[in-house]
């Protein structure tokens, strides 16, 4: 093969140029003036990651300058929303740094809405502030470009590299250029994984063209999880998938509608169903339902029960609010700023919320770490106050030496959203600079045998296709290979049916999970036979590799936690109640890439505020 191998050496390698990656790149340069900072992204950082499309709100802002909220308040909020289980040390750390992050965004040119009476940022709710964020990502990308030594767009990172001198120490990453096909070996002293969480692990409600209209971006391909998992990093709360209540089909966001426009939900007969289900929810989960706001998963649960009881569809009552022209404008611009597809759905179906109360639905599950859920890697906490069990090294370092993370990659820290992910990127980067400085001349070594073997593996799908294609006349059916889409659809079906997707009413149990894991194992074996006709499909093949490994991790965690902690996200039919006696803890997993086995354990939850 004539593909070049390109070597890129750096002090700090940032994998993924979304919100967390741009934050990490910016901060690395601030503290590491003489360091070589490289950011690698599979798309183009100008429009990459979950914020590619823009946002109409920043969902994590304390407003400490006006005494609106303190970091402790945010910890309480995230803790209750996640049914008691968050890394409070990490969450507090993000909350205390997020305001300076948001203030920089405004200075850089992000248009913030302001309350005409108070002059403060316009609040949407207690934590959210409203923005005209169409260019949120281009603005943040500009800051990152000014900071990086090099930005490599269109390179799909497939694996991390490990130090050949010292066990459990990271040494870089490998990937391929989606345009040229060249193989890239990134050698680095520290690596910050700031890649994306996971859409398309579970079968989506729409399986034709509409499978693109997932709630989380279709390019969020679980690299945030697969990269650290393969490197042997411990993962946490991977069972904590999220299900979103959203406007039907377009998955348009409901936050501004509930909080700012004061719209509300009702069943098909105009009744308030959430109150109806409150007592039965209390029997399942106890006091968590009595907190304000009611946890996201429990509100999902009420909606699901109501639909199962035959009183759907659930609708958002918009007709009253939309009589106000200002509110109508906010309602539409909210979509145009971040979920244009919902505006298209309404235009196509003649739904004007002034005249029709639009339908809501619950999405397929997603696995990510920055919204109302907290899957990700187990990371070391801040030096000044984290408990000793949460501290084994530098802030945001995973259980692999020199491997840091931010955004979707770090577990236990729900509700960080865009601003918190950028702030966490900054936190990780400062720690990574410190790590590199402390390392001195001791650079990790990359063995040629390791990257040469990976190089062969990375391009294997092209070879599989080339050989297999010659066996058949034409078409997509071959006994020797399956295409990436074939593999993705099998994955989504397994996860949907056995691990608690939409068709199973988000319900699973031990026998289902055990069977699901058997089928996942066969899919893993078949991944050796993925065929890719071109470089674009080679990217899809590696995205699928990442999704399959993350899915296996999700299934293992779901099997391990013997309770139903988040009804409305998923249910263990064999353990239908929340169990604070045995499961008020984090679940941890560690993957052994030599034998493919998972080791599960519990880790304690510390509460830092009452």
């Amino acid at each position: 093969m004539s593909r070049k191998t390109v070597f890129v050496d750096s002090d700090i390698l940032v994998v993924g140029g979304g919100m967390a990656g741009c934050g990490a790149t910016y901060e690395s340069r601030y503290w590491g003036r003489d360091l070589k900072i490289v950011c690698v992204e599979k798309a183009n950082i100008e429009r990459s990651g979950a914020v590619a499309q823009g946002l109409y709100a920043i969902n994590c802002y304390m407003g400490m300058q006006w005494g609106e909220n303190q970091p402790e308040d945010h910890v309480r909020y995230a803790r209750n929303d996640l049914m008691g289980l968050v890394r409070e040390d990490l969450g507090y750390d993000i909350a205390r740094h997020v305001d300076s992050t948001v203030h920089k965004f405004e200075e850089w040119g992000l248009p913030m809405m302001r309350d005409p009476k108070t002059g403060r940022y316009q609040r949407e709710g207690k934590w959210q502030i409203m923005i005209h964020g169409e260019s949120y990502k281009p603005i943040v990308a500009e800051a990152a470009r000014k900071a990086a030594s090099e930005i490599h767009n269109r390179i799909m990172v497939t694996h991390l590299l490990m130090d050949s001198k010292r066990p459990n120490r990271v040494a870089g990453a490998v990937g391929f250029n989606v345009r040229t096909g060249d193989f890239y070996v990134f050698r680095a002293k520290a690596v910050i994984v700031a890649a994306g969480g996971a859409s398309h692990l579970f079968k989506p409600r729409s399986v034709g063209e509409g499978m693109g209209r997932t709630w989380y971006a279709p390019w969020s391909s679980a690299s945030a999880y697969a990269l650290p998992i393969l490197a042997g990093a411990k993962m946490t709360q991977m069972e904590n998938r999220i299900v979103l209540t959203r406007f039907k089909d377009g998955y348009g966001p409901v936050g501004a509608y509930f909080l700012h426009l004061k719209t509300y939900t009702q069943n098909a007969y105009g009744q308030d169903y959430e109150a109806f289900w409150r007592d039965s929810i209390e029997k399942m989960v106890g006091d968590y339902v009595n907190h304000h706001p009611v946890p996201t998963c429990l509100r999902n649960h009420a909606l699901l029960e109501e639909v199962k009881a035959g009183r759907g569809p659930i609708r958002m009552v918009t007709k009253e609010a939309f009589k106000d022209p200002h509110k109508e404008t906010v309602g539409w611009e909210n979509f145009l700023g971040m979920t244009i597809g919902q505006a298209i759905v309404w235009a196509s179906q003649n739904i004007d919320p002034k005249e029709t109360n639009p339908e809501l639905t619950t999405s397929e599950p997603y696995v990510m770490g920055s919204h109302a859920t907290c899957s990700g890697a187990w990371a070391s906490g801040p030096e000044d106050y984290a408990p000793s069990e949460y501290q084994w090294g530098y802030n945001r370092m995973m259980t692999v030496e020199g491997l840091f993370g931010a955004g979707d990659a770090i577990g236990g820290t729900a509700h960080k959203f865009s601003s918190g992910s950028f702030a966490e990127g900054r936190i990780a980067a400062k720690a990574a600079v410190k790590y590199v400085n402390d390392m001195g001349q001791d650079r990790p070594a990359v063995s040629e045998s390791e990257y040469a073997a990976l190089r062969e593996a990375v391009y294997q799908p092209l070879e599989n296709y080339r050989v297999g294609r010659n066996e058949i006349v034409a078409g997509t059916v071959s006994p020797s290979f399956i295409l990436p889409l074939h593999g993705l659809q099998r994955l989504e079906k397994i996860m949907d049916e056995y691990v608690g997707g939409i068709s199973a009413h988000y319900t699973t149990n031990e026998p289902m999970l055990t069977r699901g894991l058997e089928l996942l194992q066969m899919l893993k074996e078949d991944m050796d036979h993925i065929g890719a006709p071109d470089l674009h499909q080679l990217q899809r093949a590696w995205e699928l590799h990442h999704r399959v490994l993350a899915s296996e991790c999700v299934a293992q965690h779901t099997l391990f936690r013997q309770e139903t902690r988040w009804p409305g996200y998923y249910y263990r039919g064999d353990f239908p109640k929340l169990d604070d006696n045995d499961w008020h803890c984090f679940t941890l997993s560690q993957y052994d890439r030599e034998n493919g086995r998972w080791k599960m354990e519990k880790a304690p939850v510390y509460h830092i505020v009452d």
Partner: protein
Amino acid sequence: MPTFVYMTNCDGCGYCVDICPSDIMHIDTTYRRAYNIEPNFCWECYSCVKACPQNAIDARGYADFAPLGHSVRALREEDKGTIAWRIRFRDGREKHFLSPIRTTPWGSIKGPAEYTTPTAAAMNSQELAHEPDALNVPALPTLDRNRLKKGVVA
């Protein structure tokens, strides 16, 4: 299909290919113009629509659930700092919106290395770049390690 390209408007410049987060806008080798190679991985994010200098790209809602006859058009003008939207319903009704996209000139962000080099003391503190000034509060908040409690909250 969700985005598609009008044959007569596209000049094959490749801006959409360069920007698409999903890597699905490619140049057709016969016509030398762009098209959406994988509509089922299109998020309708409009990155390509906004980037197209010829306004050659549009979206047709996902065939699974969007009836025909609608249109959502965007005109993003960096020099004006605005984005204009026109929504046309299947029944012909229209709605128009205009939003700012940026308050400062493009390219004007001050890079992190343009700030004074931080001191060793700052490096060893918990403060991030521009803190505590950029927090607009006197000091970065911290916690007392002794307040940590294990387990269930009473």
